[in-house]
């Protein structure tokens, strides 16, 4: 073992340029793998965050009815799964807002801001001078309604509905969700306000939930909740509502995986062919070692160690290169693409590179063990 390792080291050091080229080859492969992995991971996280990060990921409703005993439902649901990050009741109705001659169709949503802010992050999205609704009939409107209705903070607007009585709201602020539909139509207020409009007592229309592991929504958490609560409730998840987004995300993961696999395959092929040539270059040395009585297994070990050493140094330099690439990409590209990587991902990349390099040395190693002293002497 020790001798094989030392011979491997000397062989690599004796042809420094060739060794350096292989190490650089592995390093480039590793760095590309890290770069692409981190970039696609980041894109995915950011896509998930923008599409479902600020909305309900699991929603509980009661078919054709409002939920009256929602306190009990909240506590039952919350205790059903460890994956629940935030749970909040909301109540929604619709109608139109009127200011002078202007009128807009809107959705009125009543929230409990202590918990709902964790999902929707309203406080981050308020425009300067705005504040969240505090008491009954205070509302905050989507920023687009400001111009279409011609109103300011402090304005009083009229809520009209075909079903319910009209009433007046005081505008205490505007929010900007960067989503046109929401900015055009959402009017957020307290739960009390909407309950007052509907006039059915202490009821809500939805229970909204955000999760720690969003991809567990359908197959894990939904089932856990379903076991605890009564059948009269309907549970829907972001996954069932966004099949195309999900298949997009899966497609992205698969393409990232494919790219990484092909990078590794090319690294393996590169090392394998270079080491195969090394076996030929070192056949004279192998012949003399075998004449002196080195066993075939130990002779093979020399090349496995060579592969491993190349992999270790390739991985180290590759990680540094990869981090450098990511750094220069985020610094100089001018884009705002987030990058996601952690020590685990780096360790995995390094581990794969080392394992792949050692594996790549397998065929040269077998070749070296089959080489006989006779062949070497005849070809000398």
């Amino acid at each position, binding site marked *: 073992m020790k001798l094989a390792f030392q011979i491997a080291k000397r062989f690599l050091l004796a042809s420094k340029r060739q060794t350096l080229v292989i190490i650089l080859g592995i390093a480039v492969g590793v760095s590309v793998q890290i770069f692409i992995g981190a970039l696609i991971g980041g894109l995915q996280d950011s896509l998930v965050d923008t599409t479902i990060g600020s909305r309900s990921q699991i929603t509980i409703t009661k078919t054709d009815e409002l939920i009256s005993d929602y306190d009990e439902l909240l506590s039952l649901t919350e205790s059903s799964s460890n994956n629940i990050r935030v749970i909040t009741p909301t109540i929604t109705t619709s109608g139109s807002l009127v200011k002078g001659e202007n009128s807009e169709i809107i959705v009125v949503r009543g929230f409990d801001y202590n918990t709902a802010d964790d999902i929707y992050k309203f406080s981050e999205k308020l425009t300067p001078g705005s504040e969240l609704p505090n008491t009954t009939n205070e509302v905050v409107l989507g920023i687009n309604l400001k111009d279409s209705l011609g109103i300011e903070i402090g304005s009083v607007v009229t809520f009209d509905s075909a079903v319910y009585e009209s009433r007046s709201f005081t505008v205490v602020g505007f929010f900007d969700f960067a989503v046109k539909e929401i900015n055009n139509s959402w009017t957020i207020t307290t739960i009390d306000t909407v309950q007052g409009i509907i006039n059915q007592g202490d009821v809500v229309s939805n229970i909204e939930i955000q999760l720690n592991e969003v991809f567990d929504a359908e197959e894990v958490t939904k089932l856990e909740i379903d076991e605890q609560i009564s059948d009269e409730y309907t549970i829907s998840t972001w996954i069932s509502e966004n099949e195309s987004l999900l298949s997009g995300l899966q497609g992205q993961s698969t393409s990232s995986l494919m790219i990484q696999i092909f990078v590794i395959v090319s690294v393996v092929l590169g090392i394998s062919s270079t080491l195969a040539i090394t076996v030929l270059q070192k056949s004279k*040395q192998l012949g003399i070692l075998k004449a002196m009585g080195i066993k075939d*297994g130990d002779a093979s070990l020399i090349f496995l160690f060579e592969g491993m050493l190349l992999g270790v140094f390739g991985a180290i330099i590759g990680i540094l290169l990869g981090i450098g690439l990511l750094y220069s990409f985020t610094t100089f590209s001018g884009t705002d693409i987030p990058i996601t990587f952690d020590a685990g991902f780096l360790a995995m990349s390094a581990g794969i590179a080392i394992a792949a390099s050692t594996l790549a040395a397998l065929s040269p190693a077998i070749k070296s063990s089959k080489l006989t002293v006779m062949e070497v002497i005849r070809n000398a």
Partner: protein
Amino acid sequence: MPSILSLKKVSKTYGENTKNPTKVLFDVDLDFEESSFNSIIGQSGSGKSTLLNIIGSLDRPTSGDILFKNESLASLSKNDLAAFRNRSLGFIFQFHYLLPEFTAMENVLMPYRISKREITKEVIERADELLEIVGLGNFKNKLSTNLSGGQQQRVAIARSLINNPSIVLADEPTGNLDSDTTEKIYELLRDINRKFKTTFIIITHNRTVAEKTDRVIEIKDGKVYLDISK
């Protein structure tokens, strides 16, 4: 003197399973005595190198057997043969075959390290002594590629002796050296033969060289043609 190595009806055919098998050795019987100094001569193509390779267990005979200290080598596995070579044989080749990545000293120690024993102070002293004997005491830390042809061959001689082998096999050990160096190398081999009682079997095509040995075996057409002892 007792026999150290015997060949019993050794034949070798190359390409046995092809249309034109070539028989290189025909029922060769030979005995080598302990501490003897032998040469094998023959034209190229006579089968002398094949004979040396079979004696050195680098190649197996097609039929017949080789006895080392009355033990048959035929039944040994590849790994056992490797261990046998490491322990009991020393090789000196025409092309010096030092490991160019290692120093003279490291090359001399290589057969010892292959045997997987711990490097001790004694073995380093022995390597030092062997390098002194071949006149390279001052060159032990030089990379072998920085040595001249004659120096490399002397390192190879020191290396062949490190494990105290019973037999040293030399294939044209001075084949590509000038005549002065050739003379010195043979004197060296002869000294070692006397000092360590090592059996030498030297292959050469040079009759003047062969005549310096105690026994000359001439191989012709795969058979022992002449066998003269002084």
